């Protein structure tokens, strides 16, 4: 986590006023322990373990409400995304990882994140002349190449090695 969190915290240290506009406008905060202001507070105080171990990072909806209302333009959604990526690479939140890796499998088969789920939908598509089905092998290979050349392959390998980067 070292280098990453150093840069993240610096950004927060320079800009976050701890005014709480973010948490005040956060829809997830109304129904859960999600609290972007507290997350920023932990990062400022370099309490990385508090960030890693609680749910602040995972309850966020990435709806960008906080970003729009922050008087100082702190990009909390981007911060959360980097923390999520980092935690997954560290082998934390295996349940989230497994769930989303299974969605990557659907992507590789269909090109989309969801298959056709009912006969009724299949029939509607047929009658309406909607042709989009599973992607061709060519497109699947394109996706694989994209994954390889944008470092997603390496990342997948790191995901596989559970916890090795901690």
């Amino acid at each position, binding site marked *: 986590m070292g280098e990453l969190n150093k840069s993240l915290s610096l950004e927060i240290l320079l800009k976050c006023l701890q005014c709480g506009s973010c948490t005040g406008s956060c*829809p997830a905060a109304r129904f859960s322990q999600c609290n972007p202001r507290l997350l920023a507070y932990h990062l400022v105080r370099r309490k990385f373990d508090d960030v890693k171990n609680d749910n602040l990072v995972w*309850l966020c909806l*990435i709806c960008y409400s906080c970003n729009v209302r922050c008087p100082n333009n702190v990009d909390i959604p981007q911060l959360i995304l980097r923390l999520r*990526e980092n935690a997954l690479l560290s082998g934390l939140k295996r349940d989230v990882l497994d769930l*989303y890796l299974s969605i990557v499998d659907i992507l590789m088969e269909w*090109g989309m994140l969801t298959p056709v789920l009912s006969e009724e*939908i299949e029939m509607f*598509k047929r009658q309406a002349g909607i042709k989009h089905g599973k992607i061709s092998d060519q497109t699947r290979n394109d996706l694989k190449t994209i994954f390889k050349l944008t*470092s*997603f392959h390496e990342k997948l390998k790191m995901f596989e090695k559970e916890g090795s980067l901690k």
Partner: protein
Amino acid sequence: MNVEKLKKIPEEGDLFLYPGCLSVNIYPGIETSTIKVLSKLGYNVYVPEEVLCCGLPLFLAGILSSNTMYTIVGRILAETQDRYENVLTVCNGCYSSINSALENIKNNGESMKIIESALNAIGFTFPQNVNCFHVAELFYKMRQKISELVERPLDDLRIAVHYGCHYLYSHQNKVLDSSEHPKFLDEIVSTLGGTSIDYEEKDLCCGEPALRSIRNLSFELARRKILSIFEEEPDLILVMCPSCLRAIDKIQFEMLSFEEIDVQIPVVHISQLIGLAFGLDPRKELGLNLHLSSRDLDQSPLRKILSER
């Protein structure tokens, strides 16, 4: 009003329609209604044969990096092949990811090198002169022509409008009117003869973007939204995003099974709403019976306008 953006939205000509995942495999009526409505408005609509997900849900979970997502978006946009300048989406998520990818061209040198070389490796380049609009924005611009084509006015229909966070907040400076007080969907409703009603939780997120491993958070958000909408007893709920549609559609089914509500209010996409007003077939052309909230159209509040024909 974002006059500059409004000016750029084409009033005729060729459009590249990118349908996205959910409007193909869960709510295909969104794709068919969008194509029919755009054709009635006089556009030539091109839809790519293969649909590739923009990758946004995987990016939001921390699985895909922005570079991977932007490259996938580049692969999608490359299908415009210099023939289509205007890309339309029907989904707030796709709108957000495509616009982020387009902004990235201007901002980030190092990132673009990676994206370009990955695209070149599969024989594509990132198109430089593409605009991406949400179909609802185009409908707003075309509201005069839309009003002339109404065959089945939505008279007496009271409609609860939901805009969606990824449209309003992810690119605040690109919102058609105002991210805090948007009005353009409500105005389209009036154009069609309906009445947009106010409700307390109009700004509340639908809950769908929550990680799929914490469904109870999605449930609580969507439930609060529905309870607030139900207080006003509208006939219809209008969205501009298939993802919001899914959240608001599904939650009612769940609440019904818990006996928390005893009727469902149909949730429709803006393209389907205009399709209804244009007199299109609610089942065969709009696929409204594929929504959990309007499976039985004859029993739904929509019968008010459907039976008159």
